[in-house]
């Protein structure tokens, strides 16, 4: 009996020290390798949206003439435009993954390419995807990149220059097929990455300065396609009234023919975008052939590069491009270029998405809240510790120690799993500390009763724990049930605060049950063994 107690005590001390180490701020993390088994984990506090700032977006897949979550790799049998079926050929489907799963993979890759640290992409429900971008300062570009379908086409514009931002109908489909909704009027002069323009706010028109430079070979001087200078009268207005018959442009190539696309900085001093971000792309063999054939036959004509039915750039073909390489220039910021390259590199989404909810929080907002809440929590917990010590005396002190162990272990779990801490989550953690006391109180009250009926101290301790356990277990289960329901509710909507609270409270309750039974029990028994006579002579210390 004695040995078991000491063994348990040793384990408890070990666990506590480990928890302390995990909770320490400058934690080096866990890094070790045993043969092929590797673990590399940094152990940091993961801050939720309201504390760390950033953006959370829930995307909903829009149905395109049929089911979204079909399990075949190609949405055959759906009344969908052929280009969508064609796009699937890009991906190696992982055994029956449905379209939403494929889309999720692509979105994950795009998010990765954006370089947002600790970004997360989860599936929510059966047609929604939650994208979390912690700490990001300007979410607008990121959100556009992630959500846009990203279907790229090279289109024969003929003798007419198309302004970037123009929405066109190509031989592979109309804008509705991409966005799932009717497009409204087009606005000339919109920036290269502006999605469906529906805002009627007058903005200053921007002059397009775009060019496409085809790099024939590394040694030969780059052959520049002429920068189209929109002289007065030659630039057609891009607004197409809905009543006129819409012109259909012939698609020469699609994003399927791209082999790679990446961002680079223009090193050509003669170019318009010198030292600005441009996107270099390389075509696969089939695409290179098609491109060569087309450019040979259409020297002097315009070639429109289109993403999601919107013109990105529209250079003139100066000479045939046979090497299958090219550069896309536009008024890109580095972020925009990266985003576009990610869309091109990882492919177009198989389904269009719309945003159903968006949360943006400035990172500075959280700092203040953290400090206040931590301080408030410490005050509250300290009051609890004081109260327990005064009211229950020696057992109260034992409960205090158990409480501290509980807090350390639970917080260590938060860091280890990791659980994203939100403000309600912190409240839930603090609440569970207040409740962790409950188990101890149940035990002590029971012990007091047993002592009052005349049992010896040792027997009273044992009886106290045994009888109280059923109460503790039964009462905590109802809280655990509601936590489970809350978690379901929160995850269904990507409501991080709700599910964060549910998780912290759940963990808190579970760990508190553990600490009450093991830590308090062991400490009291050890105390009893060590100081039995002293305690029996001073029953007042037991809070009777």
């Amino acid at each position, binding site marked *: 009996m004695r040995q078991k107690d000491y063994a348990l005590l040793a384990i408890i001390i070990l666990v506590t020290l480990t928890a302390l180490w995990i909770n320490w701020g400058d934690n080096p993390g866990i890094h070790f390798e045993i043969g092929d088994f590797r673990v590399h984990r940094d152990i940091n506090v993961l801050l939720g949206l309201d504390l760390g700032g950033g953006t959370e977006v*829930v995307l909903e897949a829009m149905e395109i003439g049929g089911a979204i979550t079909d399990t075949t790799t190609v949405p055959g049998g759906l009344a969908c435009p052929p280009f969508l079926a064609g796009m699937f050929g890009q991906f190696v489907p992982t055994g029956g993954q449905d379209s939403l799963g494929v889309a999720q993979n692509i979105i994950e890759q795009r998010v990765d390419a954006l370089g947002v640290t600790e970004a997360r992409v989860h599936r929510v429900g059966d047609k929604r995807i939650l994208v979390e971008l912690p700490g990001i300062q300007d979410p*607008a570009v990121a*959100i*556009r990149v992630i959500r846009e379908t990203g279907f790229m086409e090279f289109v024969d514009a003929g003798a007419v220059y198309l302004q970037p931002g123009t929405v066109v109908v190509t031989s592979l489909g109309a804008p509705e097929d991409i966005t799932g909704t009717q497009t409204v009027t087009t606005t000339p002069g919109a920036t290269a990455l502006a999605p469906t*323009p*529906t*805002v*009627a*706010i007058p903005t200053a028109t921007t002059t397009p300065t775009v060019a496409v430079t085809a790099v024939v070979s590394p040694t030969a001087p780059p052959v520049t396609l002429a920068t189209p200078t929109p002289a007065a009268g030659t630039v057609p207005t891009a607004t197409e009234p809905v009543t006129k018959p819409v012109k259909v442009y012939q698609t020469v190539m699609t994003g399927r023919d791209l082999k790679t696309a990446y961002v680079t900085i223009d090193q050509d001093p003669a170019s318009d975008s010198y030292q600005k971000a441009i996107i270099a792309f390389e075509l696969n063999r089939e695409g290179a052939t098609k491109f060569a054939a087309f450019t040979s036959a259409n020297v002097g004509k315009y070639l429109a590069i289109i993403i999601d039915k919107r013109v990105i750039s529209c250079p003139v073909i100066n000479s045939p491009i046979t090497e299958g390489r090219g550069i896309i220039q536009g008024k890109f910021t580095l972020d925009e270029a990266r985003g576009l390259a990610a869309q091109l590199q990882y492919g177009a989404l198989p389904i269009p998405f719309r*945003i*159903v*909810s968006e*949360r*943006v*929080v*400035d990172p500075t*907002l959280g700092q*203040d*809240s953290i400090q*206040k*809440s931590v301080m*408030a*929590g410490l005050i*509250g*917990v300290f*009051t*609890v510790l004081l*109260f*327990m010590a005064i*009211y229950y005396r020696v057992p109260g002190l034992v409960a205090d120690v158990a409480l501290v162990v509980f807090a350390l272990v639970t917080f260590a779990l938060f860091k280890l799993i990791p659980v994203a801490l939100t403000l*309600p989550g912190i*409240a839930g953690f*603090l*609440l569970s*500390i*207040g409740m962790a*006391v*409950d188990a101890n*109180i*149940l035990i002590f009250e029971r012990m007091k*009763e047993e002592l009052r009926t005349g049992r010896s101290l040792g027997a009273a301790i044992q009886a106290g724990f045994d009888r109280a356990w059923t*109460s503790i277990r*039964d*009462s*905590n289960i*109802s809280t*655990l*049930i*509601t936590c489970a*329901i*809350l978690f379901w*509710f*929160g995850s*269904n*909507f990507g*409501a991080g605060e*709700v599910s964060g*609270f*549910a998780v912290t*409270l759940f963990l808190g309750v579970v760990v508190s049950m553990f600490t009450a039974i093991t830590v308090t029990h062991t400490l009291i028994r050890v105390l009893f063994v060590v100081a039995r006579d002293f305690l029996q002579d001073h029953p007042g210390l037991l809070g009777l």
Partner: protein
Amino acid sequence: MYDIVGKRKWYFLFSSLLIVPGIIAMIISTATIGTPVRLGIDFTGGTIMELAFTQPVQPADVRAVFVIAGYTDTSVQTTDEGRTVIIRTAALDPDDKEAIKAELASQYGAVKEIYSDTLGAQVGQEVTASAIIAVTVASLAIIGYIVLAFRKVPHPVRYGVCAVLAMIHDVLVVLGLFAILGLLLGWEVDALFLTAVLTVIGFSVQDTIVVFDRIRENIPKHRGEPFEDIVNHSLLQTVHRSLVTQINALFVMVALLLFGGATIQQFILAMFVGMVTGTYSSICVAVPLLVVWEKGEVPAFFRRLFRRPAAA
């Protein structure tokens, strides 16, 4: 032995005093704004956002920008001497939001988005439906659990139902309070409030179970004694523990309420009130109801009610 349960008529009266104003407020609320409590965007959909400017701005001017963009149902409030603006509107399309911010920036200089929360109207409806499901499922699960845990006691279903009635009592008090605050102070209810309500449900039942557990334990020990006496006994034994636990949890709640950040104040208040009534309802509602049921007082009450007019 102090007769706690004997005074149950007073407890029921007191509970009515707690609940009735809340119910009246909810009725008024439904009549004036359409819902029993003022709903936030989590349930209705829409956008709420806070923007910071470098110079004071007029709410009407800011509102005009939104209206031009097509968002006619917009309300704008300013704080911080007009430099910070809180805007409520219909669900903002992210591109519109960028365009509006650009427009505001061109008129008033740099704009910083402190936070924004957008929820499509459809999602809002789903959240509302899920909320109702969540509360219903929680209640049923808890009844089921109690019936299971107390199956060896005579009439286990009564324990479950009484616990749930106590829980409903607590929920009504909290809802009523927020209905009143919604009418008087414009407080809105969001997903976090639902979290508080569900947590209150969990705690309220937790408290009740501890008492019921003791009753369950005492019934075989005091066979032959009137039920009321056994219950009184059990209550006296557990009330101490209930209060001490409550006090400890309240220490933390009060500290958070007083010193914690403003953003979760409503959440903490809902939980605070819920937990206080949770303890009260375990002792003064759940248990007396059990006694009332056991003694068949409800049919007797109605019989007396209908006998009087006949006698007159």
